[in-house]
């Protein structure tokens, strides 16, 4: 059984192709101004990697914020359900999935089959997502890719306000002027984001095991901060940014009739 | 037949059960005083006491034991008037202690007690307990003629469009405690005045047989009960009792009294009547017989044994307060308790709260677990 999942993310389009529960191809392309075109391109790349043609894909499920623009979609599911399915697939003992994406963050609680029991989404504000980190990295004048490692050296001597990106930025600038060391400020930034995510997580009854997915999960600085704030072990799978597409592909597998 | 007629004709769900209840109360009056209707008539209106020739007493034999005064029903079905079919247990409790502790001649027309007072007392208690367990204070709400009298007074008040009054809560609660005190006091008084039964001699002078306090000592409570003058005066009015005898009196220590009526009786009746015009079912809140019957709805072990219960579904109750407002004896427990068993000893089971509760299945009355009547969305029928 060959199926595919498309995650129409705000920043990036992700594709995953599954062959009988094994990932045989994946691709990621920035959405840009024309997400539909970008998605088609991403699909092409994934098919090339899998050495398949579109006809051989039995079912395609789309998810993500821009799901209405997904090409080739036979069905759709919400990111919530996709996260849950991907979570238990990657870690059978996963029951809470935290997905921190570019502009939205989600916490999903599910059962062993990946059925959603509860969920919470961050309130209509980018302060609880990857966009916060981007803005803060700019203010700190470091590259986002380097900020994580930088923060790991710090002890946690300063903190910043996390309720709003604008206020956060002002805080960072004033800390810089006070000559606080950059690694401390970096850690404070991650702590602020982790605080935000934790407060969303407490709206549901989180239960072990907790796994973290989404683009931001690759950032070591963030995973360290989240482990600190949630006070629990957190597992991060390989290629966490593909969780949504993987979940969609698993749903496609169900729809196509396989298990 | 009347019952069926009411159930068919009265469509307004907020009135049906009350109509039924008033009808049954009204029907109980002739049933209790059946002798006045059935006869025999034309007998000399002798100044007789005790079982008059027109008494049609039922229950003269209980389990093979002779019980000449008749079935004790826990309502104020006074022993004194003629033509009655049942007896007031309060009188029986007092009289069987003294002067009828031993076997022998009783008051009245050839009454001879062939069983001991102890045995007769046991039967009285047994009957009252049995009836209280089965139907609780439903007797008060559906049969007692004094209750009917108070309901009639309420209707008179309503005919003049006057509103009823409410006792302040603290007073109401105090009255409920008071009734236990009343019955206790009179029982003790009965023992003191009838001490011959226990101590072999009358402690209070004048109360021995032939003494001028003899007839009063036989039943101290009956000298203050308002039911007695009500019955007696009604019977005098219809010519069933001889007024000369009723009103001939001895000037006692501190009251004017005859065998059938004392001035205290009259005072209490007047008080009960006037207060019933303002406060609904006021007497019922302090009635000592009600206290006795209600014991089975009050104390935990007995509560579990009683058959008739009032129950409430916690989730369906919206706390709208209608049950508290329409309750004649102003009981708050049905409203205030969250759910489950809400039977109280002050409740006369008039079922007005259930009738007026507008939420389906919220309140219900059950007999031995089986639902007899439950609250309905009474808007449906109109």
């Amino acid at each position, binding site marked *: 059984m060959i199926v595919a999942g498309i995650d129409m993310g705000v920043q990036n389009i992700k594709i995953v192709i599954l062959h009988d529960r094994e990932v045989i191809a994946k691709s990621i392309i920035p959405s840009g101004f024309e997400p539909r075109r970008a998605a088609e391109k991403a699909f092409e790349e994934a098919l090339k990697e899998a050495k398949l043609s579109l006809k051989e894909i039995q079912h395609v499920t789309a998810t993500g914020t821009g799901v209405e623009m997904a090409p080739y979609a036979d069905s759709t599911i919400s990111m*919530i359900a996709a996260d849950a399915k991907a979570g238990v697939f990657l870690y059978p003992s996963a029951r809470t999935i935290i997905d921190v994406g570019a502009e939205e963050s989600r916490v999903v609680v599910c059962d062993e089959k990946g059925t959603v029991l509860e*969920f919470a989404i961050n309130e209509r504000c980018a302060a609880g997502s990857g966009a916060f980190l981007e803005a803060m990295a700019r203010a700190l004048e470091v590259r986002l890719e380097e900020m994580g490692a930088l923060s790991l050296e710090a002890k946690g001597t300063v903190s910043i306000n996390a309720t709003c990106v604008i206020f956060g930025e002002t805080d960072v600038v004033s800390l810089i002027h006070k000559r606080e060391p950059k690694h401390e400020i970096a850690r404070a930034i991650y702590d602020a984001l982790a605080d935000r995510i934790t407060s969303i997580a407490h709206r549901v009854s989180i239960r072990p095991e907790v796994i973290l997915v989404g683009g931001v999960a690759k950032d070591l600085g963030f995973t360290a901060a989240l482990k600190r704030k949630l006070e629990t072990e957190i597992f991060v799978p390989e290629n966490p940014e593909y969780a949504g597409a993987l979940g969609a592909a698993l749903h496609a597998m169900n729809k196509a009739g396989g298990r | 037949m009347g019952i069926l007629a009411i159930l068919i004709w009265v469509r307004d769900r907020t009135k049906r059960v009350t109509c039924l209840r008033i009808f049954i109360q009204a029907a109980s009056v002739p049933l209790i005083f059946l002798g006045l209707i059935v006869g025999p008539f034309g007998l000399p209106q002798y100044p007789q006491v005790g079982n008059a020739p027109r008494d049609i007493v039922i229950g003269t034999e209980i389990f093979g034991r002779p019980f000449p005064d008749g079935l004790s029903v826990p309502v104020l079905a006074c022993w004194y008037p003629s033509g009655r079919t049942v007896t007031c247990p309060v009188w029986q409790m007092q009289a069987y202690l003294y002067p009828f502790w031993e076997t022998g001649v009783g008051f009245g027309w050839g009454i001879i007690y062939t069983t001991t007072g102890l045995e007769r007392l046991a039967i009285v208690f047994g009957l009252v307990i049995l009836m209280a367990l089965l139907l609780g204070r439903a007797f008060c709400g559906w049969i007692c003629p004094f209750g009917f009298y108070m309901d009639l007074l309420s209707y008179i008040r309503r005919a003049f469009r006057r509103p009823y009054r409410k006792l302040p809560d603290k007073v109401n609660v105090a009255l409920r405690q008071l009734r236990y005190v009343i019955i206790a006091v009179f029982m003790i008084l009965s023992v003191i005045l009838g001490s011959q039964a226990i101590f072999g001699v009358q402690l209070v002078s004048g109360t021995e047989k032939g003494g001028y306090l003899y007839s009063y000592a036989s039943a101290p409570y009956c000298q203050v009960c308002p039911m007695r003058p009500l019955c007696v005066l009604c019977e005098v009015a219809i010519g069933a009792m001889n007024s000369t005898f009723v009103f001939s009196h001895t000037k006692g220590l501190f009251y004017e009294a005859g065998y059938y009526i004392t001035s205290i009786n009259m005072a209490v009746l007047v008080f009960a009547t006037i207060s019933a015009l303002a406060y609904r079912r006021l007497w019922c809140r302090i009635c000592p017989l009600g206290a006795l019957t209600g014991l089975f709805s009050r104390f935990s072990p007995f509560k579990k044994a009683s058959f008739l219960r009032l129950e409430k579904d916690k989730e369906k109750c919206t706390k709208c307060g209608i049950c508290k407002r329409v309750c004649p004896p102003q009981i708050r427990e049905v409203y205030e308790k969250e759910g489950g068993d809400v039977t109280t000893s002050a409740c006369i089971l008039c079922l007005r709260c259930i009738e007026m509760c507008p939420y389906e299945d919220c309140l219900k009355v059950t007999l031995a677990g089986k639902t007899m009547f439950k609250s309905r969305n009474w808007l449906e029928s109109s």
Partner: protein
Amino acid sequence: MMMEKKYGVEVSQKEAEEIKSTIRTAYTRLIAEYIERMKKGWPNRPKVMDYFYEIADFKTREKELIEAKKEGKKVIGYTCMLAPIELILAADAIPVRVSSGWYDPAKIGNRVVPVEVCPVVRSTIGVALVGLSPFLELSDVLITPLTCDGMTKLSEIVGDYKPVWTICPPRLKSMDQAQAFWREQLIKLKEEIERFTGVKITANRLKSAIKLTHRATRTFRRLQNLRKGRPVIMGRDAMLVNQTAMWDDLERWSMKAEELCMELERRAKENVWACSPNAPRVMITGTPIIWPDNWKLPNLIEEAKPQGVIVADELCSGDRFLYDPVGVDEGTMDDLLDAIAERYLLPSTCPCFTSEKGNEDRVNWLVNRVKEWNVGGVIYYVYRGCMLYAMEYMRIKKALDQLNVPVYYLDTDYTREDVGQIKTRVEAFLEMLEARVEI
């Protein structure tokens, strides 16, 4: 009004006229669009629904009120359902609810109060400022129960534009003194109404008014009971029928709603469903959802994939409005006033009330609803700025968790910009409910 405005903000006549005409046109279009969507969502609806759609665009009733005023009748508006409409009806006046359900006037309201304030209040202020609401304009006086902070200050602000009669429901409603206080206020209110309308409110008039509201309550509950089983009516339409009672002529409303109920009962017998019987059954609880703009959420629920159906709600603008009847005992004036006072105060589930057990009236009502209406999931709907509903969320969630019913906290505002985000959340929620049913 020669008195100086306490809240001082003036809008020039010219500006007011401009705003009014733009918004009025926009709303005529919006109402028509929403009604179209409701019609599309329920193609086999009964014919009598057309009556309710007509009342929903306010114009018919506006004309009737103008006519009535010409004949000398008084119109008494109210901002909260704790206002006793029986007293208004008994004085031969016309009751009409004036809470604003329009989004755009909220921006105008921002000129008077900060943007953090409850949007219903801001919108009502905006509407008063510009003279936008026909019902508010036609009201001769307003009854403003001081239930929450927003309502309290709204009363003062709106008092700059219309005479207001305030009544204050005591928060500890179970205390005897509180009930006596409430009753005293209603007696004073009754006297004010009598003075204003020139009609003496006798016991007989009150009884007729109560008879009218009894009939309305009976039909209202009949309609809600029909939503217990499989869906014979779409939730959006039921909510609209419920709400039209707040400004329509009660007697006529009852008649039409009875017609609707009879038709729905027939359909229930013949298994004619409004949507799939397997659609996830949703209940909404929280801040009032007032027509038309606030149909944002009901539209999203019933047009989503998977489609949900709203089977019940705990909203003062919905299933709570005419739920409790006035329990008349003896029919004397004292008794009638007691009955009316108690009916409005005691069974209220509004979170402005509190008690030792923590507003258990609301919890019990919700739990009962969830069980009897077979609710699959609850959406807890709160406007940003509402302290009371927001704070009671945990209490309700805990109680409903015990029934294994998912509760989703949805906060929103008087804005159309968050439609996309609410859509994601609603669809995820409905998807979750559907999956639960399949287990």
